[in-house]
């Protein structure tokens, strides 16, 4: 089992979700995160005091899938989430020892 993690631009969530679904994945988990990287943040001004905010809102998606599916899921996300502008984000894959579905207790592939 693998966990594919993607940090993407927020407005790409629906497209990526649809794309992942098309590949047959039945679910995913999404988290609101703040990203720091090459993409510049912004400046805020309150009564003359200027604050630089370096973090940019991003969405983190996590998809658990079979070992064999991981790369294709990652590639699909990369294709769909791309705008070509700085800050499009990252995708990475980490190993998973085991996974269970809480409702049934099923493990492994059956848990997905």
């Amino acid at each position: 089992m693998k966990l594919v993690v993607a940090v993407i631009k927020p407005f790409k969530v629906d497209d990526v979700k649809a794309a992942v679904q098309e590949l047959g994945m039945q679910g995913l988990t999404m988290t609101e995160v703040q990203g720091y990287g090459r993409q510049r943040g912004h400046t805020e001004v309150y009564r003359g005091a200027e604050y630089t905010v370096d973090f940019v809102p991003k969405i983190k998606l996590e998809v658990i899938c079979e070992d064999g599916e991981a790369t294709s899921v990652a590639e699909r996300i990369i294709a769909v989430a791309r705008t070509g502008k700085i800050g499009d984000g990252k995708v990475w894959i980490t190993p998973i020892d085991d996974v269970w579905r809480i409702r049934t207790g099923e493990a492994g592939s059956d848990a997905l």
Partner: protein
Amino acid sequence: MHIDSGDTTWVLVAAALVMFMTPGLALFYGGMVRAKHVLGMLMQNFFCLGLVSVLWAAAGYSLAFGGDNAFVGNFAFAGLHHAVRVAPAGFALTIPPLLFMAYQMMFAVITPALITGAIADRMRFNAWVWLLTLWSLLVYSPVAHWVFSPSGWANRLGALDFAGGTVVHINAGIAALACVLVLGRRQGWPNRPMPPHNLPLTMIGTGILWFGWFGFNAGSALAANGLAVQALVNTHLAAAAAMLSWLVAERAKQGHATTLGAASGAVAGLVAITPCAGYVGGMAPILIGAIAGIVCFFAIDLKHRFSFDDSLDVVGVHLIGGITGSLLLGLFADKSVNPAIVHEGLFAGGGVRLVWFQLVVVVATLAYSFLMTMLIIKVLDKVLPGGVRVTEEDEEAGLDLTQHSEVGYSLLT
């Protein structure tokens, strides 16, 4: 001129109440946009209090109420000259003339503020400043003159508008449509969901609007008398009935009565009763409100049918609600409520004459306001560097950050 302290107090209070409606409107609209545009919306509204008030003192009041031309005022009161002691021609006031100026100022402020709901989330603040200036002087003041000034042609005709059905709601509503046609739709509309970000904020605004509307409508009696009372009662009952009818329609069509629907219905009723407030009585306000609630509920679908992004339904609620009220007044206007009525409504036995006059003024307002607004905004789009609309990136990032360098909420620091 006899000054009555009771009447003066009532109009002082009414002026304060109408002033309070602009912050109320800001919150009403502000809660409905997405979080990243909330300050942009609040700012466009609050800014009306700043800019229009000064313009009104400088020239707007005079253009609306100076002189006795049928189409537009003059500069007799410009810079508030004489405005402290001299009432506009044709008014027999029991309040200090300057108070009349102040009371009308609050109407001049809120009318263009209504437009902001239609153009939400995509106009450059700079463009709004210019639009506001020109619209206020070139559209609001003349139309106010037609209808509110005793020398105005609509007023002379015998058409009725107690507190601004044409001057305020139809005027702002059709101007909103013109702006939307030039600005275009928000990115992603109508496919991308754009849910209200803070409905409790919208409900605060609704409460303030309802409260302030008593000043708007009952204050238009310009005295603390039976007419003011009738107007207050009409205002309240129409809002109540429209809330109910909107919710019934909504429930029937989509299965749920929504909070935003309750607020929207109430505002629709308030809009429709505005022209009628001092001219109808008995259960008529309930009927007018109930009709307006249903009509506006279905009217907000027009934008989907004709694919124009009237973001917060200024056309559906203010334009259509205002027309509904103005025309229903042609049916319900009742001399026993207000002896100042020249031609009674159809149901009061006055025949179709008033309906016809109402229609004439509605159409004239629609035509003038639409064309002038179109002209203004097209010229601005040409003349202003960057045009009237924000860039795609700025729209995505939000008006708050890009126009004002602020964010609405930082709840986690």
